[in-house]
């Protein structure tokens, strides 16, 4: 080849074609998918928790998607009642579908583990509840205070010895409480939305 214009135009054409197929056309199709009535938009606290989730990179070990039972055992594993569909993510910007399961999937964690104090203890030190866990501890999302220093409205985390700091109590920060509020909001327990079934029929199934 010796023509610069052929190279530049050809290269632009290939990437342009791919952008139309994988970005342009889906955008036109997916923009019409409405949020299901059972799915609430994030509250301010949950949205803040979602930001904490992003800031600390939870997505690098936890997915938020269940694949079709015809294809995998995601549902049989107890992570949720059905495969997730596009409408389940109508409020998500950015998406947090994830690509790793170093830890379990979280799209229904609010249903599976509905206790706020369980999550707070687990975030403070996962091994206090799950001895074999390799998840990091997040002590910086908590304050360690003198027992006399607890104010009304503080959420004291019931951490057991030996994981509790000696002679001090663990108090959740607003970030920790927001993160747990977000985790508890993760539940896709309603049936596949009607708006999604037609389009989704071909969407989450193997051909």
């Amino acid at each position, binding site marked *: 080849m010796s023509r610069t214009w052929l190279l530049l135009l050809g290269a632009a054409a290939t*990437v342009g074609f791919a952008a139309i197929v994988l970005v342009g056309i889906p955008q036109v199709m997916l923009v019409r998918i409405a949020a299901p009535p059972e799915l609430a938009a994030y509250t301010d606290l949950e949205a803040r928790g979602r930001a904490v989730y992003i800031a*600390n990179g939870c997505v690098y*070990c936890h997915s938020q998607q269940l694949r079709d039972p015809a294809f995998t055992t995601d549902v049989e594993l107890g992570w949720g009642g059905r*495969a997730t569909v596009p409408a389940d993510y109508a409020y998500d910007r950015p998406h947090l579908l994830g690509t790793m399961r*170093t830890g379990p999937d979280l799209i229904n964690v609010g249903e599976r583990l509905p206790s706020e104090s369980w999550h707070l203890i687990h975030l403070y030190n996962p091994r206090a509840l799950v001895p074999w*866990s*390799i998840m990091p501890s997040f002590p910086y999302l908590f304050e360690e205070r003198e027992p006399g220093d607890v104010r009304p409205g503080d959420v004291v985390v019931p951490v057991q010895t030996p994981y509790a700091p000696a002679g001090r109590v663990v108090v959740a920060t607003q970030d920790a409480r927001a993160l747990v509020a977000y985790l508890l909001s993760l539940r896709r327990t309603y049936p596949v939305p009607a708006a999604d079934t037609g389009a989704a029929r*071909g969407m989450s199934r193997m051909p």
Partner: protein
Amino acid sequence: MSRQDATIPFRGDVEIRLRADASSRAPALVFFSTALVWLLFGSIEGTLASLKLHMPELLTSAGWLTFGRVRTAHLNAVNYGWASLASIGVALWIIPRLVHTELRWPRVATAGAVVWNVGLVIGIALILAGRNDGLEWLEMDRYLADPFLVVGGGMAGVTLLATLLARQAGHLYVTVWYTIAAFLWFPVIFVIGNWPTWTGVESAAVNWFYAHNALGLWFTPMGVGAAYYFIPKVLGRPVYSYQLSILGFWTLAFFYALNGMHHLIGGPIPTWMITTSVVASVLMVIPVLAVAVNHHMTMVGRFGALRYSPTLRFVVLGAIAYTAVSLQGSFTSLREVNRVTHFTHWTVAHAHVGVYAFVTMVLFGSMYYIVPRLVRREWPSARLIQWHFWLVLAGIALYIIPLTIAGGFQGLAMLDPAVPFQRSVEVTLWALVSRSVAGVLLTAGHAVFAYHFWLMVRRRGPTREVPPFHEPVPVVYERPEAHA
């Protein structure tokens, strides 16, 4: 023909090369130096992230030390710092050489390196401080950091385009196609990926459209292009087939751009999108085999040269890794394979075969060839080159092989509803430890190389008459009379 006449074209050829080398000296050295700083930083962050996966209580006191941020700083530092900056440095040297003229506006390219680095410092500092865009491979802040990369990369790209338009060579060698196309592709995919309006599953589709193309349309053409230059160059032998190189380039351009959705197999996006990407991923076998035949057939019968040329050693290793990682990628995109390997360390290992064993090895080899021509002296130490090579080879082997195997077992454990999730964690632990050892070896190898580079540009260390591994070895002749 007199002796004088015979040498004229030869002398002209050398002069063109000397002028081309001199023109790209300053920008290429700035890109290489800053790339190496990011390589060292990224290696330390990567090793720390690896340690944290089997020592979860290590350094948990502050947010900037948590796994999710350290891992992300690693990814951005090695991809946008090391691999991108070093690739641009290689391109700034290689294009003037191939089009037989000086680099145009070299100061613009140098300034581009500064701009790009400013964006990286801002982006990675914000990631560590807990502010990122939440999309894998696109974590750096789309308003405060990413524009610097577009402008900085654009400044380097403009100098290359101006050089190309002022070319003295009639024919454009295959390396030119790959390199120039990469400079056109990267800003397009980077802007699409960072566009702030994508929501829901469309955000996921665009995320992986970008992230796969960052490999396929940015690092891969840079790496394949460099290998296309250095293997024939060092061997002094033409590339095996010109027709194959054309086929390889255009099929790569067409198929690779469509690959991204194989990262979402089984996920909640339209099945036809995933199927499109699976088909394109399998069709990638065509460009990969075209490039493989060209690289490896050029090499066949000349493997002895690996002993004398560190450039060839690293680049050929990288070219072999390219063939391997691409075929592995096509295989992994098959649904029956992907249902096991998706969400496991198999993918992490695969990414490192691509960006490390392929791209990084090619970049090391390229720098071993280019830097002596920029600073006009030979590498001072053969021993440091040996240490660098064997440390990174051992390191990457210890990274990839255990983690690939463990990822397979992890996936099988996760597919079996009768097996508790705990098992899928435990079967990976040995490989996670091995990966940390690998991280230490790789970091040590990078420190050796960075030190050697520093000796080069600061003109320290012994001055050599001949390149390392080319020292004349005294030969003892037996006198013929002795046999008589």
